[in-house]
């Protein structure tokens, strides 16, 4: 990881780029810095804290925030007193590891790489130029980014929400949407920023959690755009919890008194001018591409679109205009976290395709000495108590802790270290372990979450198994949080060391665990997502089998003519089908169906039925791409009259439009209601494209779109703008006043209430086209076979909604396309590439190491009750027939995540968790009380 750097030039081509990087000085030695924070504590220079949006101060030597990676301090030269005035050097004086380097200089680094991925992100819109919102003048008008910091427990007010004018807790806050988005009048951002509606709802709900039930949040919006997976449910919940939503743009904000209370003026739905007072206003600012990203794009020589985002095609969503250079995240267009993560994996996948011949060529394996057999030996515990400079030693009495450790059973050796983690201590530790014949090691220092792997490697270098190691966390969870109570910190450190030693005496060596990998993937579903996933794998040299239920490849995309950017889908699909069919790494099974599955990562076994014959496929990874389809509904007379159509029926049958004078599109048919409480994400854009096409071809045809909220997210908003310019008539309706379609001898009559006119309208329509909900495929069987979770609407549930959008909790299985949630083709392709990229992390190995901290069943004690199999969230325990003795639980170690739910639930105590056995945990527990 190279930080504080920027790319200055690039030459070469895909597979062989030379990149020059300018690395700015950090003035802190990254190897020496232990992030203790002493430097920042002693630094006298107070600086505006950018991370906290200027609402707090930091020091001139700092880390931007507590979770920063790498967690290393840096000196801000412009604000450092030594650099500016020539004297101070307090940080250097107090740094316990002598990590300060005032003589650090700028360096140029040259890198030889095969691919480049650009992920430079966005900048929040700066509302200072909007005089009507008064952000620059009124303290109680804040941006959403500022409010995010105000809400944060790690923020300037420790999560206590207060007004900036007087520190009073607000009773009423208004969020104003679309500040710097969907606006050509005051700024040049005609696009929708995609994420603001959702974050405003989130902020309002969390603010309510912080401020209590009397708090009144209000969101002023144009269209509520909660088009993400399960976002609509969150919107519904917010309304139920008392968040008020007002469809209007506030035009004027004034301060009513010296305390900073604000008056907002707006025009209501019914056209009345309303004024209302609020304690605070939050401006939901939109996204703009980061200037640093634009600069980098220019240096890399890649094309930008008119809104300065990186230009991509829908059918190659992460490829830039220059071969070998890929893009992911909001530099490509406004998007939320899950989509950014999807694109990141997709870009990694595409980069791997072009680099597949070089895969693994730069990898070197670390060789450890042979392990000593010490399991049966009496414990000889070595205890290393770390001072961590003064972080531990300055508060707890380390010599007293060490002396105490010497008195405990099985302790053979104790030493105090200034820094247990330093390179020289590590080397000495190896010698001591050998010399003193130690067979269990305890390090009392910081946290095992960051340092356990380092010490485990050290003891492996001394010939000990990695699991004969235990840490006592006497820094993060002791001296750092009890720094004012030195005696109590010492007492607690002694207790923690005693607990660790007690547990260490019972630790056992655990052998490494690895499973072989079958280097082929099974892709369930032969639509765009399934085919893209299979092809992305095949192009990296892995084989894939596509199982497709129907007799043809193509899936839901067979009905689609254009992507939202206007790319030709049928010809793209033809090419894709041709490439898939011609690829020798891909086997396509049509009219085939998965009927059973078993196994685990690297070793799945799936039974497929095809034309009455059943075949078994062995595969290392599974990609679920079962797709979705437009719902058939019985609403609005669909199915009873040929002039009432849905989705692509009209554009696929253009003769229907030939003599039509009036076409009505109805949105949200079967979406966003009680039965399907989700937004189908793509319908607004699709109807928009069709409406534009009709008006462009025959300007005399009247086109109406009846909608609830127009959700043309991102740059799709430009389609909405174009439709309005072309004279498409938009009429908003609400769920309680749905339009009514009636058949008449002359055609169709659509009745709808227009909220702007406050009048019922009657539209004479020749055609009515319905945007019906996108439904999942019947996924229950597949979910059952692979033990995968579905959400209430039968879409597959990913491992983490934000951070693991294509994974499942079970390893080796991935999801993409409509099987996950309704999405446009560009997003399906990106997600399919991401799924292939994730699958390649499995398939690229001959054997995968899995954590050996797994559960173990004693079949002698097991009574086959099945509780363990039921509670296991990972499908890692199955019941096996035990020859006439009923069932017995069986572990599948490769699937086990070591949570230990099974061990805790087993009524027979027949299951133990390696490294977390009952007696090992109890040893620590019992030692705690002493």
């Amino acid at each position: 990881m190279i930080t504080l750097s920027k790319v200055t030039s690039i030459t070469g081509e895909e597979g062989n780029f030379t990149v020059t990087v300018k690395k700015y000085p950090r003035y802190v030695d990254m190897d020496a810095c232990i992030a203790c924070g002493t430097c920042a504590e002693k630094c006298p220079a107070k600086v505006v804290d950018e991370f906290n949006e200027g609402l707090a101060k930091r020091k001139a030597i700092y880390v931007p925030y507590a979770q920063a990676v790498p967690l290393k301090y840096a000196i801000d030269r412009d604000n450092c007193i030594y650099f500016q005035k020539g004297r101070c050097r307090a940080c250097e004086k107090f740094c316990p590891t002598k990590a300060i380097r005032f003589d650090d200089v700028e360096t140029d680094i040259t890198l030889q790489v095969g691919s480049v991925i650009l992920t430079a992100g966005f900048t929040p819109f700066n509302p200072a130029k909007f005089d009507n919102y008064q952000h620059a003048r009124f303290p109680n008008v804040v941006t959403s980014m500022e409010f995010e910091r105000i809400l944060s427990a790690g923020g300037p007010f420790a999560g206590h929400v207060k007004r900036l004018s007087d520190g009073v807790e607000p009773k009423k806050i208004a969020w104003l949407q679309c500040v710097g988005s969907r606006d050509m009048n005051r700024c040049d951002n005609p696009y929708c920023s995609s994420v603001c509606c959702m974050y405003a709802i989130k902020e309002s709900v969390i603010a309510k959690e912080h401020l209590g039930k009397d708090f009144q949040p209000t969101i002023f919006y144009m269209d509520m755009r909660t088009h993400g997976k399960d976002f609509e449910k969150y919107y519904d919940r917010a309304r139920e919890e008392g968040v008020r939503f007002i469809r209007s743009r506030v035009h004027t904000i004034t301060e009513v008194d010296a305390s900073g209370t604000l008056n907002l003026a707006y025009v209501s739905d019914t056209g009345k001018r309303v004024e209302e007072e609020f304690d605070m206003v939050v401006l939901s600012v939109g996204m703009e591409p980061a200037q640093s990203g634009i600069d980098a794009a220019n240096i890399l020589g890649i094309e930008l679109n008119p809104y300065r985002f990186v230009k991509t095609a829908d059918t190659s969503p992460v490829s830039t205009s220059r071969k070998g250079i890929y893009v992911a995240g909001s530099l490509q267009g406004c998007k939320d976290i899950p989509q950014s993560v999807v694109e990141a994996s997709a870009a990694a996948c595409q980069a791997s395709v072009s680099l597949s011949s070089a895969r693994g060529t730069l990898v070197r394996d670390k060789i450890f000495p042979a392990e000593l057999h010490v399991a049966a030996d009496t414990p000889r515990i070595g205890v290393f108590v770390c001072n961590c400079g003064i972080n531990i030693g300055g508060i707890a009495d380390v010599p007293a802790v060490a002396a105490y450790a010497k008195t405990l059973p099985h302790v053979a050796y104790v030493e105090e270290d200034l820094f247990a983690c330093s390179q020289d201590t590590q080397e000495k530790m190896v010698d001591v372990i050998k010399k003193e014949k130690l067979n269990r090691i305890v390090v009392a220092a910081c946290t095992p979450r960051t340092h356990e792997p380092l010490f485990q490697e050290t003891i492996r270098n001394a010939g000990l198994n990695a699991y004969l190691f235990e840490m006592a966390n006497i820094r993060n969870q002791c001296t750092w949080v009890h720094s004012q109570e030195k005696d109590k910190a010492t007492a607690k450190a002694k207790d923690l060391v005693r607990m660790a030693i007690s547990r260490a005496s019972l630790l056992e060596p655990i052998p490494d665990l690895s499973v072989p990998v079958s280097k082929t993937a099974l892709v369930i579903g032969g639509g765009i997502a399934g085919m893209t996933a299979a092809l992305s794998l095949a192009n990296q040299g892995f084989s894939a089998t596509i199982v497709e239920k129907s007799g043809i490849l193509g899936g839901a995309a067979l009905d689609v003519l254009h992507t939202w950017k206007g790319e030709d889908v049928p010809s793209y699909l033809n090419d894709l089908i041709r490439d898939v069919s011609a690829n020798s790494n891909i086997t396509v099974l049509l009219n085939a169906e998965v009927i059973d599955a078993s196994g685990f990562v690297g070793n799945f076994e799936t039974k497929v039925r095809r034309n009455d014959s059943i075949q078994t496929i062995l595969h290392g990874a599974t990609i679920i791409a079962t797709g979705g389809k437009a719902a058939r509904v019985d609403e609005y007379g669909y199915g009873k009259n040929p002039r009432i159509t849905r989705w692509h029926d009209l554009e696929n049958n253009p003769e229907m439009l030939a003599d039509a004078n009036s076409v009505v599109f109805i949105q949200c048919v079967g979406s966003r209601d009680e039965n399907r409480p989700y937004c189908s994400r793509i319908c607004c854009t699709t109807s928009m494209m069709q409406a534009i096409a009709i008006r462009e071809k025959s300007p005399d045809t009247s086109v109406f779109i009846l909608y609830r909220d127009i959700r043309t997210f991102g740059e799709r908003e430009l389609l909405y703008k174009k439709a309005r310019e072309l004279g498409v008539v938009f009429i908003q309706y609400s769920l309680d006043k749905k339009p009514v379609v009636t058949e008449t001898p002359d055609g169709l009559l659509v009745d709808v209430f227009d909220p702007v006119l406050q009048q019922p309208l009657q539209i004479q329509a020749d055609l009515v086209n319905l945007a019906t909900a996108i439904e999942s495929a019947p996924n229950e069987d597949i979910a059952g076979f692979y033990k995968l979770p579905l959400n209430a609407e039968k879409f597959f549930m990913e491992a983490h909604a934000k951070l693991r959008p294509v994974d499942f909790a079970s390893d080796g299985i991935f999801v993409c396309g409509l099987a996950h949630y309704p999405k446009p083709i560009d997003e399906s392709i990106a997600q399919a590439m991401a799924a292939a990229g994730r699958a390649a992390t499995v398939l690229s190995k001959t054997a995968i190491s899995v954590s050996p901290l797994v559960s173990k069943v004693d079949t002698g004690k097991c009574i086959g009750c099945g509780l363990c199999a039921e509670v296991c969230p990972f499908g890692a325990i199955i019941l096996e027939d035990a020859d006439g003795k009923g069932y017995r639980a069986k572990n599948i170690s490769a699937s086990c995540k070591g949570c230990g739910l099974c061990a805790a639930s087993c009524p027979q105590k027949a299951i133990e968790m390696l490294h977390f056995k009952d007696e090992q945990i109890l040893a620590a527990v019992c030692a705690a009380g002493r």
Partner: protein
Amino acid sequence: MENFEPKIVAFLCNWCAYAGADLAGVSRLQHPSFMRTVRVMCSGRVDPIFIIQALKNGCDGALVAG
């Protein structure tokens, strides 16, 4: 009871609550020193017997966080 200093055994999930306790340290959030942490890989690992044993062996309370 005024000066009572309980000893509380805390079963913390490695992935969330334990990480949270670490972060409290990074953020230097000072709090009473009553807690004695036992790290587990999931709060679901905590068998009720652990809690009973903690109380029997001199702890005044048990916290399970995950």
